[in-house]
């Protein structure tokens, strides 16, 4: 089990909850990226919510990883969303315009509900 993040499935939506307040050093970022990729590989078309509510700092490298993940998910027809973004991180996401690329939700619960509706709409 990873000490960086946990993974779970809620109502058909995969949720990765980051456990660390800092995702800064290259080793942590690489390990987190590997975890996200492994989660996506298990169900490539499944919606994924990344819960960042416990995160205070992220490195700029991590943003690149997230954008690549989002692009790959798009190719598979899957959705990746962020949830629980802290005020400090929001500023970073706004400057980099990442919040216009990857949808963000106030918390994981709202993210799950929205993606579930979207999945339902898409399949129905």
């Amino acid at each position, binding site marked *: 089990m990873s000490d960086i993040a946990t993974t779970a499935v809620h109502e058909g939506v995969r949720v990765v909850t980051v456990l660390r307040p800092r995702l800064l050093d290259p080793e942590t970022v690489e390990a987190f990226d590997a975890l996200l990729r492994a989660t996506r590989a298990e169900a490539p078309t499944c919606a994924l919510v990344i819960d960042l509510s416990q995160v205070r*700092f992220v490195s700029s*490298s991590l943003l*690149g*990883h997230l*954008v*690549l993940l989002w692009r790959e998910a798009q190719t598979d027809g899957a959705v990746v969303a962020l949830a629980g973004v802290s005020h*400090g991180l929001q500023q970073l996401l706004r*400057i980099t315009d*990442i919040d216009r690329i990857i949808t963000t939700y106030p918390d994981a619960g709202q993210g799950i509900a929205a993606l579930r509706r979207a999945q339902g709409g898409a399949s129905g």
Partner: protein
Amino acid sequence: MSSTRERALTDVPTGAGPVLLVDPDPIARSVFSQCLRRAGREVVVLGDGNLAWDMLCTDHDFRTVIVDQHAPGVDGPELVRRLRARRDGNYAYAIITTRSSAQEDLKRAVASGADDVLVKPFLFEALVQRLEVAARISALEDKLARRNRVLEAYQRRNRQTLEAAARVQRTLLPARAPDLHGVATAWLYQPCEELGGDLLNLLPLDDRHLAFWVLDVSGHGVSSALLAVQVSRFLAPTLGQESLIRPSSASGTRIAPPHEVLERLNALFPMDRQTRHYLTIVYGILDASTGEVTYACAGHPGPLVVRADGGCERLDRPGVAIGWLPEGQAHYADGHFTLAPGERLYCYSDGVTEACDAHERGFGVHRLAAILATARALPLADSLATLAGELARWSGEDAEGGDDVSILAIARADIAAGGNP
């Protein structure tokens, strides 16, 4: 003669060198030295610890030292302690011989750094076995020392290469202040490693227009620096058709608006899937005659403008980082403002605002703005020096890691007021 002794006579292990034997007892010296010679070992025999230490100081070839605990002058444990303190890279295997089996004596012998303790009387075979161990350890120590030397040489070459590369990278920074009437410039560039993923520049486009940019490649180290250098090449005004900022065509050259520069950069530098490097940039053009500034940002903080009254404005302009979206999908819009006489603009990388103190608090844009506003009465370069001092204080002496710090400053002189930017 036993087979063990025959083997010892003919099979001197690799790593075996001359043996220094120190014993105050002449009979013991005679017996041991004969035995060791029969075992094929070169032996120097002494009865005094002082003489032994003198010899060890001048002759570093001894790979095994056998010394009696109570050798006169410098005794066994003291001799071994001195041997271990000698950091010349040559390891000598040390055996202390003693007639005492008292725990205190054995402890003192081992604490001195001895590899082994032999309690007299002992069998010659026991000594030969110890010498085989000594030879094996010496061979390993030699191998380790050789590898360390190779590693040190590699590290030295690496450092020299990085320093040379850093010198080359620095040639890409502004060589001198652009000669534009009423405009002063200054910059600060502090890579967190030898090579930085940040770069900045100030480039006159004609006698009125000054281009300025600060870019920040994600990550650190050589690969980030190489990408930064590669990008900067396209941001030079004298490259003809290749220049993104002053492209030429059959009809002549023109000044490209910032949004166009960023869109073309995005087309040229898609995010690499292996390195996952991308870059953020603020690019702007100042019209020195009017003070009008046109700028665009790609994932980078916008300029900070210090007004003449001390007010500070952040002119962030969200835009996706270069390389995140495929060509044609990343669009940027130009922002405009006027830099009035007596006002200053600062462009910075996030290494400034994200510098952390001992409590992991970020320096922050508000602190940055407050310092620059307070320093507005100082000459432009001094305002950056003040900021650098505040940043160093914030990060602390033990700061490690961190990010590149790049700041570029432009000021218009308040000529009517006789001001100097």
